[in-house]
């Protein structure tokens, strides 16, 4: 950081060509680092493909959707129920966390007294730091028995959605709060001067104006939810099945990897890398969807 303090680009002090070389070096380093950061995902994909190739090359990728079931030790690798579970869990957690986040962000930006805002911000920051295992323990000792009272066994899709929603809440809430704070105060003042009520100002002016930030917060939240492992492993019941209701247990792709990887050998092990690859494909599809929605949103904006 001392380099920054030292004002690294005095321009007239040195001959022009030296300055230019420094500029070039700066951009080269920046571009190099940025490319390195961007390529990590490819490295990961490469690893997954390498490890799972023996299995994929045997019978093609379709078998992972069409096999009889998930019996990895008997060479039957149908992952479609787990893909579905991952998607359902993410959608559910997002559906719970997003509205609550928006309520929370609105409250702390516009309604809450300063001391309460500060307290709530601290609370949310602290929650983000709670290790996932602790959320898992909370889920298994508090949420699962509660759900169990409604409908056994308790370990279920619903329990997973609730705990994961609480987990991703800090991410979405903090980022959407930042998005709301970035809305120019002029909008709020203009609306107030027109005699528009607080509720309408938020719903029709502030939230729409902040929608890019909110969508981006949701994408990050969804990414966390779909990649979440430990909590899901502990509260979702881990049964490989297509759930018929919220109260039935499910197994997500991530939980599957964490659950079986330490004890898997041979094809079984390769199939877990396929699951990882599947995750990557799934997330890519979601991101592409988000980009597309964002792009059409931008184009269709008034």
């Amino acid at each position, binding site marked *: 950081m001392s380099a920054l303090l030292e004002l690294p680009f005095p321009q007239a002090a040195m001959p022009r060509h030296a300055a230019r070389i420094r500029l070039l070096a700066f951009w080269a380093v920046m571009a190099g680092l940025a490319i390195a950061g961007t390529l990590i995902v490819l490295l990961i994909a490469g690893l997954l493909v390498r490890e799972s190739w023996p299995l994929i090359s045997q019978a093609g990728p379709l078998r992972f959707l069409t096999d009889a079931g998930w019996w990895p030790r008997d060479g039957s690798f149908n992952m479609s129920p787990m893909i579905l579970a991952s998607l359902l869990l993410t959608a559910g957690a997002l559906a719970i966390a997003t509205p609550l986040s928006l309520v929370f962000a609105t409250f702390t930006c516009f309604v809450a007294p300063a001391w309460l805002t500060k307290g709530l911000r601290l609370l949310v920051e602290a929650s983000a730091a709670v290790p996932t295992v602790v959320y898992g323990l909370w889920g298994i000792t508090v949420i699962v028995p509660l759900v169990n009272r409604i409908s056994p066994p308790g370990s279920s899709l619903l329990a997973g959605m609730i705990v994961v929603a609480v987990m991703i809440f800090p991410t979405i809430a903090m980022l959407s709060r930042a998005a709301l704070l970035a809305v120019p105060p002029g909008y709020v003042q203009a609306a107030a001067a027109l005699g528009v009520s607080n509720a309408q100002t938020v719903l029709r002016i502030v939230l729409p104006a902040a929608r890019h930030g909110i969508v981006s917060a949701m994408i990050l939240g969804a990414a966390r939810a779909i990649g979440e492992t430990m909590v899901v492993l502990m509260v979702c019941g881990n049964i490989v099945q297509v759930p018929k209701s919220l109260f039935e247990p499910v197994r997500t792709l991530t939980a599957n*990897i964490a659950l079986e990887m330490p004890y898997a050998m041979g094809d079984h092990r390769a199939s877990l890398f396929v699951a*990882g690859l599947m995750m*990557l494909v799934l997330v890519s599809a979601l991101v592409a969807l988000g980009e597309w929605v964002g792009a059409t949103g931008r184009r269709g904006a008034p």
Partner: protein
Amino acid sequence: MSALGSGMPYPRERLWTGFLWAGSLLVAAMLLWPLLIVILEGSHALSLEFFTGSPSDAGRSGGILPILVSTLAIVSISLAAALPLAFAIAVMLTEVCRPDGWIATAMRCSLDILAGVPSVVFGLFGLSLFCRQLGMGYSIAAGGLALACMILPTLARALTTALEAAGEQHRVSGAALGLSKPAVLCSVTVPVALPGICAGLILAMTRALAETAVLLFTSGYSDRMPESIMDSGRSISIHIYDLSTNVPGGMPNAYGSALALLLMLTVLSAAVHWGTRWMHKHMTGASQR
């Protein structure tokens, strides 16, 4: 922008305000619940010896000093590795690439996908690349680097947002003074963006501190005091995980460690806040009003 104005007797306004209060307090209660459990259960375990001793009897008794040291080392390495990458990406996205161009889109997508990669997969990736291919073995360095990959998207996004907002106003005025882009960036945009950068750092650090699955495969399990970053070392989240799932009777100390983790986060984020405030003052020459 802060307040929308105070109490209005419009019945519908009351309803709205009441709704926001109720919703937020509900959320607060939801968030407090796990935290309270940690605080209540964990406070029994805390004592001076807990912070200064080494774990014994598989962690059921003794302290967590070596674990705190390993954790700090791992988190420092991961931030030190992720920060330059995230900064470079943020600079590329805000200063160089057109926001709708394919390069920017590719970068953003790549980061978003990275954000969605499950932490187990990061663990396997770190194991294969850092521990095996690069020959680091199970070590603090390998764990830190694998963790850096995981927090990169969070950090990059936070930095991008911060630099974007800060650069907007000052890019043109800096250029009009005959300053090169990097000069404006380093001397104007970064100081202005420091609060945002600080928030991003804290968020990333938080994630790094709380992460289990990545380190399970990379940084090791050994609970003795590390002598170098090439030693294996147990991070506090792994310690909590091991105590709560693998060690009968480990639960009290698991909660104690979780509480210690929260305290550690508080101290660290206070330090980051303080550090950035100092830098901000130093770089802008302005006493904050």
